[in-house]
């Protein structure tokens, strides 16, 4: 589904990603872990099409197409979804209005009929039921005045409505208490299918107790230094990031 080859990206002349390679297939969950400043969030933003990062080298293929050439909205319509680390507040635009505009833009792109108000409300109801989310959230302006937990839940709710093929969760666990974490993780697990894939970007192993990955990759200083199965996350938790920093992936 996704293939990243030797990706280099920089911001204001400073190189952040220094040769990232990653292959994600349908049905898989990949966790990307790494210390602060290693480039995890940059990678997530680059995949979503953030223009503040310049891609200086490398390739990203998504479903066989060149992802780098696509505008952010085109990526979203093709099924790429980024759950933001810091969801943006948009006063004056209700969640319902926003999501209807987003969903219909995506449906139109896929050659599907746009949903009318009644169909859309029915869909919203269904999705809030699945995720156990309070429907009062729908009428509120996007993220405005939301608590940290509500913002993250809202990201997962959007994901449920938009049904992406490739979801990238950027530090979705940060700032969540254990109950909110469980709700978010349950939501992600319910949305998992054989057809879609998930990339979970996280600093801590905690979230991976709930969203169990097939692969774990460790990013240090803009490069993957280690990849393995879910047990790698536990090992990291136990030994800390210094362990991988000293641990040369080639000689491993």
């Amino acid at each position: 589904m996704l293939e990243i080859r030797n990706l280099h990206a920089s911001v204001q002349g400073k190189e952040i990603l220094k040769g990232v390679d990653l292959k994600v297939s349908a049905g898989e969950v990949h966790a990307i872990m790494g210390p602060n400043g290693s480039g995890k969030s940059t990678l997530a933003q680059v995949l979503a099409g953030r223009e503040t990062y310049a891609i200086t080298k490398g390739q990203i293929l998504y479903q066989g197409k060149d992802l780098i050439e696509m505008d952010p909205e085109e990526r979203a319509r093709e099924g790429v979804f980024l759950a933001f680390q810091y969801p943006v507040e948009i006063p004056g635009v209700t969640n319902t209005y926003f999501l209807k505009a987003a969903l219909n833009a995506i449906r139109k792109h896929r050659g599907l009929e746009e949903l009318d108000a009644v169909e859309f409300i029915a869909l919203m109801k269904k999705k809030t039921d699945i995720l156990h989310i309070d429907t009062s959230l729908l009428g509120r302006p996007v993220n405005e005045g939301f608590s940290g937990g509500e913002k993250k839940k809202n990201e997962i709710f959007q994901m449920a409505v938009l049904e992406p093929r490739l979801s990238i969760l950027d530090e979705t666990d940060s700032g969540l208490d254990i109950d909110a974490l469980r709700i978010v993780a349950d939501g992600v697990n319910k949305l998992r299918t054989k057809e879609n894939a998930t990339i979970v970007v996280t600093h801590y192993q905690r979230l991976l107790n709930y969203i169990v990955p097939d692969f774990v990759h460790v990013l240090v200083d803009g490069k993957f230094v280690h990849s393995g199965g879910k047990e790698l996350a536990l090992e990291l938790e136990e030994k800390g990031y210094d362990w991988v920093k000293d641990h040369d992936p080639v000689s491993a």
Partner: protein
Amino acid sequence: MMSEMLERYKTHFDAFEKSMNGESTSAIHVRRREAMEKFLELGFPTTKHEEWRFTNVTPISQTRFHSSTLSANTGASRTQIEKFFLSEADGARLVFIDGLFSPEFSNVDKKPGRITIDSLANALKANEPAVEAHLGKTAAFDDNGFVALSTAFMHDGAFIHVPDSETIASPIQLLYIATGDSQPRVASPRNLVIVGKNAQVSIVEGYYHLRDRSYFTNTISEIVVGEDSTVEFDRVINESDSAYHVSGLHVTQKTSGVFTSNAISLSGLIIRNNVTVVLGGEHAECTLNGLSLGTGEELIDNHTTIDHASANCDSHELYKAILDGKSRGVFNGKIFVRKDAQKTDAKQTNKTLLLSDEATIDTKPQLEIFADDVKCTHGATVGQLDDEQIFYLRARGISLDDARDLLTRAFALSVISKIRIEPLRRELDAMLQSKLRLGRLEND
């Protein structure tokens, strides 16, 4: 020696005077003559005048407008006019074509001894005592050439009289439609609204056009809000983009009177709105909201004055501008708090969204406070659309243009949502969106 321009308006005035037969000796006409004298003395303001520093009206003074006072243009069909009717409105409606009352499209409401909603021309003919008592009394013309000129030609418009304890449930619609025929015309619509004690009324005034031609609307509204009364006055200015619109809204509020004005300026080459509110009785409350949408080379100038002349009054003011293309905005908000106006609570906010690098705004709060126990706040912000918000919307599949429109609409909504008349809110939202789209096409 009189300039050619002044001569021209003098000739119009003489012809207007000749056309009125016996009325030329009336008290109202004495007011018109005084105003004409004043206009001949003042002329149009120039940018040297402090109040007109950012708004150059030379294009208005140089255009040879024909007077609409004498000849009505009747070349408008019902279908052309009906599309401007407020939907779901079953109240009174007064339609004016090129400034003159059009009975065939109107729906007057007269209950003898009670409510009068009729044209000012009819009220003048009927010698309504309220007209004589109030017309031209609240709109001072001694320092403003536009007010003087409009007063000299005051003749038609709306006359609304709501006596004590009357409530008019449905909004009254005042429709001013410029046909934009081959001659550039000047019209001087005049609204007089007298509301008694403990009464209630909502008025929607709209300025629309049939053709994209040049013309000049020089309008004045005088409103008296009686004790314990509630008045909402909504204005929609959607003139041709080659037209000039200068308006004066002059309001006097009595004790515990509540007045709200929502002024939406959507189109016009030069739009200048002057609003003056006098809080003349205790516990009066005034809310002024404004939204300007400038595209192309439009200039939209809002000058407001709130005069806290009595104690314990509140005023709230929110003016927003969205400026695209090479458009310019001006906001000047004066608040006077007189010596005896203790416990005044005044709040003024001005926010501007610049959609292009070439659009500009001049904003100036002007607070003059002579009382010591008051709360007065003001704030002005100027900004652009937020890149973070745009990226967030795009990352959910919404196109760049739609994301920009969505955020711009959200900015406007905080003003539009204050209008209590739901069909008007919907129509404004639709008009706003279509104008934003057109503005974008012009930019490309």
